[in-house]
């Protein structure tokens, strides 16, 4: 059987300078291609959890295993390379670098990961793959050459999704990606994201405080319930 994409055990994390841990999770795992909704109010440690899964932050204790590999056993830059190779990240907003074009923004992960570049260019050109992804996410040809700052917030989020998905990472991490969207566009965004994740074979860890989206997911976790530190 394939190992879980994410497997956290006995996890505890304290921000430097803080008196008590913000996170304490006994067990949390994510199966391949699974879509998990992590719900929690702001300040509950959602972003911290994502930082730990991404290997940007290191837990005080416990283990973080991604794709069967222990992040704790890697050095800092090995974790960075691992993240570049296997994970795509979507932030709440301002995901894009203003000085790059839409397509260049989408291709950014390929600059940091050969593996992603190789996978993205499997069908020929990585640039074409970027344009294909963008088209799937309803970013038409006309928008490709606009300045990133001229895009609407919704368009920016979809470009960010294309960037997270390029080169088919096993895990897509999304940190409140819909909170800056209008209510009626949120559902459409999530459905597009689902479709592309399915196509790329990526598991999705989706963090939000917006419970209206919750029923769309395979599984939902309430951070308050699993976080012993809360």
């Amino acid at each position, binding site marked *: 059987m394939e190992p879980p994409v994410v497997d956290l055990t006995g996890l505890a994390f304290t921000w*430097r300078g803080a008196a008590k841990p913000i996170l304490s999770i006994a067990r949390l795992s994510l199966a391949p291609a699974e879509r998990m909704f992590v719900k929690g109010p702001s300040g509950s440690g959602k*972003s911290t959890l*994502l*930082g730990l899964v*991404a290997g*940007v*932050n290191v837990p005080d204790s416990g283990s973080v295993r991604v794709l069967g590999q222990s992040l704790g056993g890697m050095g*800092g*830059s090995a974790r*960075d*390379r691992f*993240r*570049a*190779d296997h*994970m795509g*990240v979507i*932030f*709440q907003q*301002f*995901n*894009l*670098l*203003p*000085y*790059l074009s839409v397509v*260049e923004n989408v291709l*950014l*992960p390929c*600059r*940091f*990961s050969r593996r992603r570049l190789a996978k993205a260019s499997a069908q020929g050109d990585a640039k074409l793959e970027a344009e294909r992804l963008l088209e799937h996410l309803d970013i038409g040809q006309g928008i490709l050459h606009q300045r990133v700052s001229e895009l609407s917030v919704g368009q920016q989020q979809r470009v960010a999704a294309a*960037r997270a998905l390029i080169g088919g990472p096993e895990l897509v991490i999304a*940190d409140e990606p819909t909170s800056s969207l209008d209510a009626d566009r949120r559902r459409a965004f999530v459905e597009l994201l689902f479709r592309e994740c399915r196509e790329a074979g990526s598991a999705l860890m989706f963090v939000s405080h917006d419970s209206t989206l919750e029923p769309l997911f395979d599984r939902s976790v309430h951070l308050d319930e699993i976080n012993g530190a809360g």
Partner: protein
Amino acid sequence: MAVLTLAWKSLLNRRFTALLTLLSIALSCALLLGVERIRHETRQAFTQSVSGTDLVVGARSGAVNLLLYAVFHIGNPTNNISWQSYREIAAHPKVDWTIPISLGDSHRGYRVVGTSPDFFTYYKYGAKQPLDFAYGKPFEGVYEAVAGSEAAASLGYALDQEIVIAHGAGNVSFAEHGDKPFRLAGILAPTGTPVDRSLFVSLQGITAIHVGWQGGAPVPGLKIPASAAAKLAKEPSDITAFFVGLKSKLATFNLQRHINQYLQEPLTAALPGVALEELWGMMALAEKALMAMSFMVVLVGLTGMLSLMLSALNERRREMAILRALGANPWQILLLVVGESLFLTLSGILAGLLLLYALLWQAQPLIQNRLGLFLPINPPSSTEVMLMGAVLLAGLLAGLVPGLRAYFYSLADGMNIRV
């Protein structure tokens, strides 16, 4: 490398402020290199005020003092030397040529130098350049004179101008040799040396105007017509100093010792190159101050870059977090920022160099005409390359300040976007 193209594109996105920063670095670099070049060339011009001369000989004194009055016509000789000693040394088998000079008279503030026609043959300056005539030719008759370029230009003299020589070196003299005027036979081309500010006549001319003088003043009631004086003036009884060229450089120290130990008369023979270097050393303070100031200006330029980068850094924290999420490691974030400073400094230096050459090319004739300083358009000297390296290093160090901040931000912020 991925990060460096990002640094470039990010900078391109801020091209206006980046260009201003680049400009300030370029200007400060051009200043630094320009000062260095002028410093080097003035030193070169100064220490080569006289070249090709192996020894300068005068009455017993210090070498610097001898050079000051014999070459720069500054101050007064301690004593004259006898014509006989001069003739004896000039006849030494190792001596190739000599140029006697006799000082003590002036014309409207410019020194008049009595010398032999050999002066125009053997006197060299700079990279062993001989004297050139802009107009006319060397003096031939007793009452003919040659003017340096600056003297002729500022007095507005053309050929055949009549010149009355005054006794003494000052601008205002009450004892003029008004009865024995000279005719301007030639005007020299600019040299950037004290030659430009002098007038030259023959030794006989100097002797002739002093016929009938005793103790620095005319004998009252005694009037000797110019033509008669010219006939009476054979050889001077003494001269101020003389320049010596040797047949072989190897004999220099030998002859120097011989002259310094000359029994008939206390003499000093100085190596002009050494004495000129020594003289320049006395003026090095001003030169150092100028260099220090241009270094300060470079620092100001780099500080401008530093403040630009630091103020941009806060806005760029989001960018750093995005890049971290994409798998950039903190070192790459450091490189992103330092790469920017390296690019700005490097292109600033190159632009400064370009600016310097453009200025040199434009101003070269003007500087030569006005200051008599020839600035050759040479490739950068090793000192200049070192200066540029130092600026680059300073730019790198300046870039490390925001670079390390970005590094630690990216470690502390992680993927959290803090705005």
